[in-house]
């Protein structure tokens, strides 16, 4: 029998067993979270909802999907924060999207999807801005941006020195949505109505259903 005499007296055998079980299961849980965050950040997972397939279409034509370098950014690389705690938090918060997908409007319908898209874009831009474009900076380092023209480097080093990536770089990956401050919902609706052969005014009704 091992002697635990070198341990303080309040650590009894039971406490020790509990500690070991706790540590192991905690480690397993963390590992699980890491794996869970990793898996739930993949394009494969995200597009299990059909509505996400609709945002993935333009993504698959974008330079983030097909960069010359071959470094592909998947959904979570941009939309889920770095670090297991923040990543888990983001996924936790993301469950509201899942609830909406299950009980809210029919986002799988391309019309409904496109009518809600601007609000989703505005929310995503705010998310990026609140985090100082942290997920962009996983791959992009301002000091290392060179570009094809000398101006690109100079602008990033001088003019954009105190700016966050998302302040300038929007509409890179998904369907173009204007900035919220100049967004005109009636024009957006007219475009969607034309695109899907809807009657005038139908978009508004569908959005408010």
């Amino acid at each position, binding site marked *: 029998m091992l002697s635990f005499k070198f341990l303080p007296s309040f650590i009894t055998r039971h406490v020790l067993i509990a500690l070991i079980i706790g540590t192991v299961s905690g480690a397993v849980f963390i590992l699980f979270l890491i794996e869970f965050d990793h898996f739930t950040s993949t394009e494969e997972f995200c597009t299990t909802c059909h509505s996400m397939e609709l945002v993935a279409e333009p993504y698959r034509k974008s330079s983030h999907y097909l960069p010359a370098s071959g470094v592909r950014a998947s959904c979570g690389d941009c939309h889920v924060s770095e670090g297991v705690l923040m990543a888990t938090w983001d996924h936790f918060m993301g469950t509201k999207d899942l609830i909406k997908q299950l009980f809210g409007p029919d986002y799988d319908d391309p019309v409904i999807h496109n009518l809600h898209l601007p609000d989703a874009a505005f929310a995503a831009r705010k998310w990026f801005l609140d985090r100082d474009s942290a997920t962009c900076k996983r791959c992009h380092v301002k000091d290392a941006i060179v570009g094809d023209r*000398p101006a690109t480097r100079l602008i990033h080093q001088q003019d954009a020195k105190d700016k966050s990536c998302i302040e300038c770089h929007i509409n890179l990956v998904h369907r173009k949505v204007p900035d919220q401050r*100049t967004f*005109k919902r009636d*024009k*957006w*609706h007219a475009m969607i109505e034309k695109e899907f052969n809807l009657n005038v005014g139908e978009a508004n009704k569908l959005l408010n259903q």
Partner: protein
Amino acid sequence: MLKTRFISRLITIFSITIGCYQPLLAAKVELESSNWGKVEGKACISCHQKASPGINHQWKNSAHSQANVNCLDCHQANEDDADAFMHEGEIIATIVSPLDCGRCHETEFKQQSGSKHSRARESMKNLMPNVGQYFGDHADPEMFCSNCHGSEVVVKGDGTLDSAGWPNNGIGRVNPDGSIGSCSSCHGRHQFSKAQARQPSACTHCHNGLDSPDKEIYANSKHGQLYTGLQSQMNLDSDQWVVGQDYFAAPTCVTCHMGATSGMQSNHDVGIRDSWTLNRPLSYKQSLVILESGEKIELNAEKHDPRKGETINMSDGRSGLVKAVASPEKRRKAMTNVCLECHSKNFASSALKRFDSLVELYNDKYGYPAQQIMYELYQDKVLTSNPFDEEIEFTYWELWHKQGTYFRHAAAMGDHNGVWGKGANELATQFYGKFITQVNKLVGKKRGEELLAEYLFESDYHQWLKNKETITPELGVEKGKSDALF
């Protein structure tokens, strides 16, 4: 009451008289300089001198830059504007429309509004609905016409400008803010150089080739000859540019059609001094009618004689109250005013008289008979109702639009060899060699003779067709040998 009206008329007449003889600078911007030089706009340069150095250099060389007018002063937009977008924290628009330029350049904006130039797109659509579609691209006729006439710029629901209509500098462009026209059609952005806009190339960028061959015609005219030879004496950079005072070597397009003279101000309604319309199947003298609403309408002066205070009906069904009328005579007087800076009265009036008689000759000899015969052919059902599906339709189209246009424009600007070569010579070849031959082929000898008798032989111009004159050396038969042939 009567007395008040009399006095108010007196004041009007007085102010018009004074207005006509005001000094002679292009209109100065009269706004306080506190209206521009927006602080936020100064930040644009730092990036744009790197990102778009070309534009930045152009602006730096401009009078705008010297007057502290910066990017934001012109490009700033309201968030409600259809084409507004966020850029580096500012709400801006790509297109700087005449309305935007008019924030400072009020006089030019007013003159340009409703001018012939600003109606370039509308009139093309009304007067030549088939040309773009049939000769251009059926799916996208805009591609061929709107480069000069102006596109309709459409802002898509995602805030971007539809590539069908933008980029475009056409002079009758329909802008997202509802204004019509494009200042940069003539004034290359972002330098907005006075010298550039005063040169013929500002205009001949569009006014060349088939539809308005003014580049060639001006270049071949005496005026063009002098301009090319003496370009260095044109004082093109001068702030004030009054013909006879600031330059005298040669007139450019600007000089005659919009430039200032010692007794007349410059005018951005570029068609205002044109007493004839030269780009229709038949030319007519035109009155420019200015309505109380500010709208301007060109009317055929032979058919309409609008007077101030009258209500007239417009082509779109609305009616308007006439504020002022520039009759063909008034417009001719304005044009003559320019001539007199270099020429004597007699010289000028003789040259213009010759121009008039050549336009009338075109009308009477070719334009009118051909138009009437075409009408008869449609009436007789010899031609189908489909436009441009028969040879003679193309022949007729070219007759007035190609040879007829060249002839009349050459007559206007004194391209003497053009009046003959590409004008009269090709007109006659087209008319007698193609049009009349095709008419005879289409309707047969009997009906052909009827049509010729009715529309040609009434006038002296065509009597030679009846004369059996001897074949001459022009046709390859030497003198004295023709008798043996017939």
